[in-house]
């Protein structure tokens, strides 16, 4: 078997597929982002950079972009704070069948529809909803909580959706740490906190970084959760882009906004690349 032929036959199908579904569509989008209108039907279109200019001329676009990145950073941090201890507990203090069962239980929510989960949160959070109802039943006279349609409600929904990613990636890298290493550290007199911060966290860094990217990127582009849980406070760059495609049908502007967002994501990835490279 010729090496070249082997490589080609292994990778060609996948990369042809990716070219057809990712590369060419993104190029088409890039092309659209420089058009004055969607070239469908009998419309006249011309080349323009107006769609990009709009972003810089109207302050609210950049404000929303910033708001989305802030949301992404917050959701990622909360997921890390909640998920890492969970992964640690699962990987290092639980054994055997229980561990396996718990692991299954954690990945199982992935299998329920994300939309239904978000919708269920609206049932929990909304006025006269399950949370208010149960709290008023336990502590009568607490009154309305007014959690629905607030920024914390969006945070809650997104953290819920993306927490399993962080637990999974952290779990995988913590589980790979040899127990003998930790025992060696203890035999040398290291305390629990020293072991955690000087040994486990650095060794689990690849998992933490992977989990953070897997969460941060989809969150800044999210639109369903803010829409359903955010109400008046649910306008982000993601919802604006979705509007351009599904409600307003200004595809060129939507494409331009998407490319600006993608550019910023790439900039951030680029900024982190020294760290990522060090991990390899």
């Amino acid at each position, binding site marked *: 078997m010729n090496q070249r032929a082997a490589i080609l036959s292994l990778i060609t199908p996948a990369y042809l597929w990716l070219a057809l579904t990712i590369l060419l569509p993104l190029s088409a989008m890039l092309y659209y982002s420089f058009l004055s209108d969607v070239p*469908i*039907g*009998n*419309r006249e279109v011309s080349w323009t950079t107006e769609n990009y200019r709009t972003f810089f001329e*109207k302050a*609210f676009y950049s*404000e*929303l972009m910033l*708001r989305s990145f802030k949301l992404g950073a917050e959701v990622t941090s909360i997921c890390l704070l909640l998920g890492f201890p969970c992964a640690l507990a699962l990987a290092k203090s639980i054994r055997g069948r229980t561990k396996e069962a718990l692991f299954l239980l954690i990945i199982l929510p992935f299998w329920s529809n994300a939309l239904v989960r978000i919708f269920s949160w609206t049932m929990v959070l*909304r*006025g*006269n*909803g399950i949370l208010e109802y149960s709290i008023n039943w336990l502590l009568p006279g607490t009154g309305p909580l007014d959690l*629905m*349609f*607030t*920024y914390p409600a969006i945070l809650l929904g997104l953290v819920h959706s993306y927490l399993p990613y962080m637990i999974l990636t952290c779990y995988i890298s913590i589980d790979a740490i040899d127990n003998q290493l930790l025992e060696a550290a203890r035999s040398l007199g290291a305390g629990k906190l020293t072991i955690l911060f000087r040994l486990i966290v650095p060794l689990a860094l690849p998992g933490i970084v992977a989990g953070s990217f897997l969460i941060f990127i989809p969150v800044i582009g999210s639109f369903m959760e803010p829409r359903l849980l955010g*109400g*008046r*406070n*649910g*306008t982000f760059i993601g919802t*604006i882009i979705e*509007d351009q495609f*599904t*409600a*307003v*049908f*200004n595809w060129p502007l939507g494409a331009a906004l998407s490319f600006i967002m993608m550019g910023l994501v790439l900039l951030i990835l680029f900024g982190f690349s020294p760290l990522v490279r060090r991990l390899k």
Partner: protein
Amino acid sequence: MKLRVFLKFFSCQWLIVLILGGSFISAAEIRVLNWQGYGTDESWALEMFKERTGIEVVHDYFNSEQEMLTKLRTNPGVYDVVLINSAYTGQAAKEGLIEAIDTTGMVNVGDLSPSMRNDPKLVADGKTYGVAWVWGVTSFAIDRGDFKNAPNSIEALWDPSHAGRVGWRDDAVEAVQLAAIALGQDINNPSDLKAIRKKLRALKPQIRTFWSSEDEWNQFFSANEFDLATYWSGSASRSKNAFGLPVEFILPKEGAIGWLDGLSIPMNVPNRNEAKAFINFMIDPDFYVKWDTEVGAPTSANAKAVSMLPPDAFNRTTFSDSKKVANVQFMGPMEDGLREKIVELWQETKAYFQN
């Protein structure tokens, strides 16, 4: 040798199945594009229609007029009937998305009130591009439990005592037009967009959430998320009749947005005759009376159908009162440039005042 014979035989069989299946489907099925829950997809109505004509009806839905237009543009030859707000009929015709309808043989067309049948938004150069179906108004509805006296002004939406308790539809054109009404401007050509911008900004703290469908409206309303919310007249009667919600639709003294919905046939329609039969059925009094009394509907463009409603029906009493309807401004076609400005204005408003 044998394999080839077998393949031939096999492919022949498939061909037969395809031809039979194809003709079977095309003879008995039409595709309708509409808002969800807006008359054409009532299951009892489709059964009634199938009983009469043997035609099966399949639905596809849209969330906004722009989405409807895009669906027509990107799916030529797929839909047989489409509901178009008359404000957009002219644009659709100009773009070549819909065809002129030959109404001969559609018996119920004769019963349409002439002003709507011949509305210039639906008819161009003597050619009918949309058959007038129903009309209604957009203003707002209140939760009767939250008000001692029903307000009679659109300013109720801006009333600080209901801050954070207002539901608003997430639609740029509607939002700007309601603000225009509050400011006494022409809804189709607002004279002062700056004033509208200010008015909408003042509105933002009032808003609890945005709604996008009738069902969502009902759910938020029943969860007591808002005291009052923008709404459609036909939907308000449905919320009252079908869901028993304490809703009262308000026609404010400043006026309201009026709309006329027509049914059109897309260009390259697969089943023209069946589509025409369906449109004819949709303006039939038999269908309309049942729809309005049992479910709740906007007002029919068919004068005969309206007159067959019970004497106390909302659609008969309110809209026959010419004084009340006098202030209603009907939506007309809008220039692309203006619409773009309006969309941006609305998005800026949505981004404004968030926690």
